C-alpha cells in the first residue's frame, strides 16, 4: 500500500510524464490503437498520435490499465505502423478552444480549420465531453419560435431551447426543411442575438454545400459555425463532431448570451460509427448490433440543449436523422425519440403526393408545445384548435381505410366530409412553398378553414365560444 507521500509523488510523476513521447504500439485495429509500457494514463485523457509520416492526429483513452492503454484515433489509423507510431498522453481530457471568432468558419469534426483561412482561434478551453446541466439550474423553455411553417407552428410547435429532431429517410426533403427553419425562425417580440452551429456527420459534400449556399443567400453565413466531418472523412471523427459543435454552442449560449440553433445531420451516421468502435472492441451488442450504451451516449448529446436560469442564451437542437428502411422503430430514431422533446416525422407517401414539407403530424409531437402556445403566446384558441385538428385528421385516416375497402361512394355523408377536410388539410395547411413564411395567425386561420369543412357538432375539442368566433369565418 502506498503512503500519502508516495501518492503525491505519483501525481507529480504523472504530471511530469504527461506529454512525454512513446514510440511503438502493440496493436492497431480499426480506429483503435493499443500501447503497452506507458506511465499510468488517465481514463479519457487526450492523446496526440505521431504518425510515421510526421503528421499529428488526436485521440482519446477508451480503456486504461496497468498493462495496456486503448486509444481511439479521431482522424483514423490509415498509414500508422506498429513500430513507428508515437503517442503523447497529455494528462488532461479532450478540450476545444472556443471563441466567437469561430462563427463564419468552416472546421473539421475536431474544430480545426478546413476553410483555408488559417488556424481557428479559440481562447477559452472547454472540455468537449461537457458536464451535465444540473436540473435545478435549468429554466423550463417556453418561448414560441415561429418557423413560418404551418404544420410545425400549428401542430408541433418549436420552442426556444427545445431538442426537436427530424425523422426522415433517404431522398426526402429534410435538408430543405432544416434550411427553411434556419432562415425563417424568429421569436416574436424579441430581437435576440441569433446564431447557428452546424454539424455534419458522414453526409456528402453536396449536403454541406446546400446548407452553406442557403446560409450565404440569406446573408447569415458570418453567423454560422460549421463543423464538417463528411462521408469521405474518417468515420471515427464523426463520434466527436457533435460534441465539438455543442461545446461551442454551450459557450455561445451560456457565456455569450446568444440564441443558438444547432443543426446536426445525420445522427444515424454518428450512431453507426459508435457501433463500429463497439464491435471492434468486442463489446456485447444490444439491438441491431448497436452498443448497449447508445441511449446514454445520445443523451449526452441531446441533453446539451435548453436554457439555464439567470442566463439569457439558449440552445435549440434540430438533429436530422434518416430512418433506415423508413422504420421508426429502428434503434436510432427509437432511442432518439426517447430522449428528445418530440419529433417531426416525415412520410414518404406525402412527398410522393407532392406535399412539402412531407410531415405526418400524427406520429409527430412537440412535448414543449403545451407551455408555449395559447393566450399571450400564440393565440387563445391554439391549444384546442391543434387538439381538434389532430383528432379530426386521425379520423380521416380511419375513413380512408374504410373507403379503400367499401369505396368512397358507400361512405356516409359525414365521412365524405371528413375526406374533404383531410384533403384540404394536407394540400392547403400542411403543403407550402420552400420560401413561404406564414405568420401564426395565418396558420391558425387556415386550420379553422379546414375544420369548417366539418359540421360543428363534430368539433368536440373546441368550446362553443371558439366555434362562434372562428368557425366558418
Amino acid at each position: 500500500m502506498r503512503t500519502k507521500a508516495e501518492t503525491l509523488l505519483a501525481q507529480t510523476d504523472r504530471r511530469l510524464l504527461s506529454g512525454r513521447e512513446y514510440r511503438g504500439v502493440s496493436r492497431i485495429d480499426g480506429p483503435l490503437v493499443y500501447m503497452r509500457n506507458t506511465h499510468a494514463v488517465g481514463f479519457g485523457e487526450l492523446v496526440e498520435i505521431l504518425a510515421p509520416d510526421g503528421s499529428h492526429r488526436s485521440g482519446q483513452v477508451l480503456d486504461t490499465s496497468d498493462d495496456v492503454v486503448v486509444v481511439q484515433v479521431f482522424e483514423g489509423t490509415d498509414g500508422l505502423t506498429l513500430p513507428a507510431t508515437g503517442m503523447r498522453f497529455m494528462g488532461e481530457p479532450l478540450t476545444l478552444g472556443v471563441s466567437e471568432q469561430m462563427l463564419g468558419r468552416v472546421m473539421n469534426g475536431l474544430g480545426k480549420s478546413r476553410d483555408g483561412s488559417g488556424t481557428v482561434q479559440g481562447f477559452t478551453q472547454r472540455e468537449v465531453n461537457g458536464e451535465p446541466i444540473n436540473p435545478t439550474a435549468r429554466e423550463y423553455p417556453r418561448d414560441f419560435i415561429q418557423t413560418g411553417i404551418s404544420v410545425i407552428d400549428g401542430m408541433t410547435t418549436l420552442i426556444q431551447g427545445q431538442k426537436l429532431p427530424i425523422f426522415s429517410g433517404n431522398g426526402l426533403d429534410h435538408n430543405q426543411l432544416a434550411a427553411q427553419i434556419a432562415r425563417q425562425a424568429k421569436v416574436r417580440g424579441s430581437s435576440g442575438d441569433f446564431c447557428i452551429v452546424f454539424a455534419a456527420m458522414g453526409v456528402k459534400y453536396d449536403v454541406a454545400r446546400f446548407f452553406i449556399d442557403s446560409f450565404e443567400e440569406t446573408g447569415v453565413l458570418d453567423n454560422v459555425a460549421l463543423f464538417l466531418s463528411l462521408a469521405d472523412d474518417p468515420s471515427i471523427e464523426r463520434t466527436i463532431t457533435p460534441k465539438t459543435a455543442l461545446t461551442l454552442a454551450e459557450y455561445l449560449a451560456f457565456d455569450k448570451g446568444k440564441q443558438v440553433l444547432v443543426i446536426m445531420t445525420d445522427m444515424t451516421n454518428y450512431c453507426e460509427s459508435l457501433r463500429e468502435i463497439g464491435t471492434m472492441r468486442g463489446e456485447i451488442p444490444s439491438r441491431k448490433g448497436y452498443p448497449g450504451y447508445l441511449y446514454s451516449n445520445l443523451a449526452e448529446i441531446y441533453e446539451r440543449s435548453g436554457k439555464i436560469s439567470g442566463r439569457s442564451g439558449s440552445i435549440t437542437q434540430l438533429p436530422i436523422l434518416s430512418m433506415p428502411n423508413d422504420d421508426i422503430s429502428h434503434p436510432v430514431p427509437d432511442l432518439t425519440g426517447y430522449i428528445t422533446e418530440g419529433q417531426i416525422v416525415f412520410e414518404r407517401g406525402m412527398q410522393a403526393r407532392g406535399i412539402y414539407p412531407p410531415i405526418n403530424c400524427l406520429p409527430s409531437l412537440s412535448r414543449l408545445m403545451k407551455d408555449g402556445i395559447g393566450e399571450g403566446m400564440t393565440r387563445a384558441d391554439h391549444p384546442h384548435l391543434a387538439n381538434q385538428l389532430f383528432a379530426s385528421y386521425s379520423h380521416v385516416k380511419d375513413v380512408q381505410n374504410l373507403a379503400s375497402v367499401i369505396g368512397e361512394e358507400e361512405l356516409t355523408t359525414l365521412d365524405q366530409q371528413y375526406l374533404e377536410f383531410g384533403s384540404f388539410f394536407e394540400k392547403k395547411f400542411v403543403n407550402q412553398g420552400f420560401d413561404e413564411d406564414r405568420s401564426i395567425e395565418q396558420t391558425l386561420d387556415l386550420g379553422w378553414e379546414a375544420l369548417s369543412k366539418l359540421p360543428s357538432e363534430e368539433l368536440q375539442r373546441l368550446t362553443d365560444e371558439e366555434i362562434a368566433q372562428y368557425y366558418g369565418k
Partner: protein
Amino acid sequence: MKERIIGRVKRVNGPILIVKDIKDAMMMELVRIGEQQLVGEVVKLYDGLATVQVYEDATGICPGDNVYGSGMSLSVELAPGLIGTIYDGIQRPLEQLMAASGAFISRGLTFDAVNHQKRWSFTPLIETGATVTAGQILGTVQETSRIEHRILVPVHIKSAVVSEIVEAGEYTIEDILATVVLSNGHQEQICMLQRWPIRLPRPVDKRLALKQPLITGLRVIDTLFPLAKGGTVAIPGGFGTGKTMTQHSIAQWCDADIIVYIGCGERGNEMTDVLKEFPLLIDPRTGHSLMERTILIANTSNMPVSAREASIYTGITMAEYYRDQGYHVAIMADSTSRWAEALRELSGRMEEMPAEEGFPAYLPTRIAQFYERAGFMKTLSGNSGSVSIIGAVSPPGGDFSEPVTQHTKRFVRCFWGLDRQLASSRHYPAISWLESYSEYLGDVKQWWNDHSDGTWYQSRQKIMDLLQKEVRLQQIVKLVGPDALPDTQNFILEVCSLFKTAFLQQNAFDEVDRFCSVEKQVKMLSVILAYYEKGLEAITKGVPMVKIRRLKAVQEMARMRLTVKGDELETIDRLQLRLERSIDQIGGIYEN
C-alpha cells in the same frame, strides 16, 4: 475516512474499475477513488481484486490511484428535511451541488442529504423509564405543514429501556434525543438522523391484505384498472405515448400521503418542470402545496449511469422510511427500463455472460426484488403504512415482448399498457382498455362499492362488456361499412365512442379535467350507462339512432368532463334526468 486505503486502481473501463491489492474491502462498501474522491461501490471481490462501480464520470482516473474505504455500505440519510428536496441518484441534494459548482455538475463533491445544523421542534412521546422496541415512535417533528415526521427507534434496537429523553424543544438532527439501555446493559443514543443501506429492505411486522384503492384522479385507472394501496403497476409504452404525463398526473393528484418521484435516466427538463410546477399546485384534499409531500430524485439520462442504477434503491428506501412512520407512500420510477439498461451496461463492462438482448441473467431477480418492496404493511410500531410502486417501462420500438416489459409483467399485478395508435390520435391518457388489466379488482371491490351506492363493480363490468363488443363490431364495419349493422348494434359503437371522448380521455392540461374525484367518476359512468340503456330501449321501439345522437343532452355529456367542476356534481344528476326525459319523449312519439 480517507485514511483506510483498500486498494489501487488496476484498470478503468468507463464506470467500472478493477482494483488490486485488496485485503479488507467489504462487499457493497462505499468507497472514494483517487484524490478527486469520486464516489464508488464495491460490487465484486475475487483473488485479491475488487470490481468497483463509480457513481461519477470516470474521466481522469488512473491505474495506480488509491481507493479509500468508508467502512459502510452505500446508504441514505433518513431524517426530517427530506421532503421537498431534489436529489441525484445517490442522495446528493442538487440545490447544494448547484451552489457549489454552478449550473453544471462537477465531480467529487459530497454533501449531507439533509441539513445537519437546522433546528427542528421535537415533541417526545415517550417518558424516561419506558420500554421501547424497534421501530417505535419516539417523538414527532412537524416536517412540513402537512407531514408530521415521526422519529423511530432504530431497527437494530430490539428492546430497551429509556434512561433519558430530552424535553420538547429545538434540536438538530444530530443532537441526542434519548439514551436507552439495552437488555445486555449497553447504552445507545438516539438522534433524529439515521442511515440505512439502500439495497436492504427495511423490516416490517407483517404484510397486510390490500383493500384500499390508490385513487389517482384518472378515470381510466380508477374506474377500469384500479391500483391498490401497497400494489405495483407497470406503465409500458413507446416514446411519446404518455408514461411521464401519467406519472406526473398521479404524483400530483393521487391520495397518497407522500410521493417519491424518481426521474431515472430521463429528460432534465421534465424534472425542472416538476420542480417548478409542484410548489405552485395545491392538493385538493389538504389545501397544501404539493411540494410539501414530495421528494424528487433526478438522475437524468446524461448523468452517470451507475448512479442511475442506484437511484431506484435510494428512492424506495426513503419511501419505506415514511411507510414505517405510518404513511401511504407512492413511488414513481420513470423509467425502470433505463435502470435495467444501466444494469446491462455495467454488466457488459464487467464482462459477465449476457442473457436475453445483452441483459444480465439476474435481471428478473432484480426486478422482482424491487417490486417486492411494495406492500401494505403493519409497521414495527403497530401502525399501518404502504408503499405503492408505479413503474414506467420504455420498450425498444414500443414492442412489449422485450425482456424488461415481459419480466416486469411477471412481478406486477396491474398493467396499464399505452397504445401508440391512441397517442397518435391524441386520445390521452393512451391507456389501452383492451391490453390493460388490474388484478386488484377483487381487493378494492368492497371499497369502491361502498363509495358508489354499490354500483361500481357492476357498472364497470357493463362498460367493459360494451368495449369488448365494440371490437367485434368494428371488425365487421371495417369489412362492410357501418350501414350493414342494425341500429341496436351501431348504437353500441356510438356509446363506446362517446365513452372514449367523454370518460376515458382526460386532458392533463385542463384545470377542471386533470383531476376527477371518485364521486364525479361514479356519476359520469352512471349517466353514460343510462344513455346506453335508455337509448337502446328507444331504438328497439323504432327510434332512429341519429335522433338520439343529436340530443342536446348528449352533446353536453361529451363535454361534462371539462365543464362540470368538482363542486357542481349535481349538474350531472340533472343532466341524467334531462337525458332520460328527452329519450323518453322521442320514444313516446314512436310508440304511437
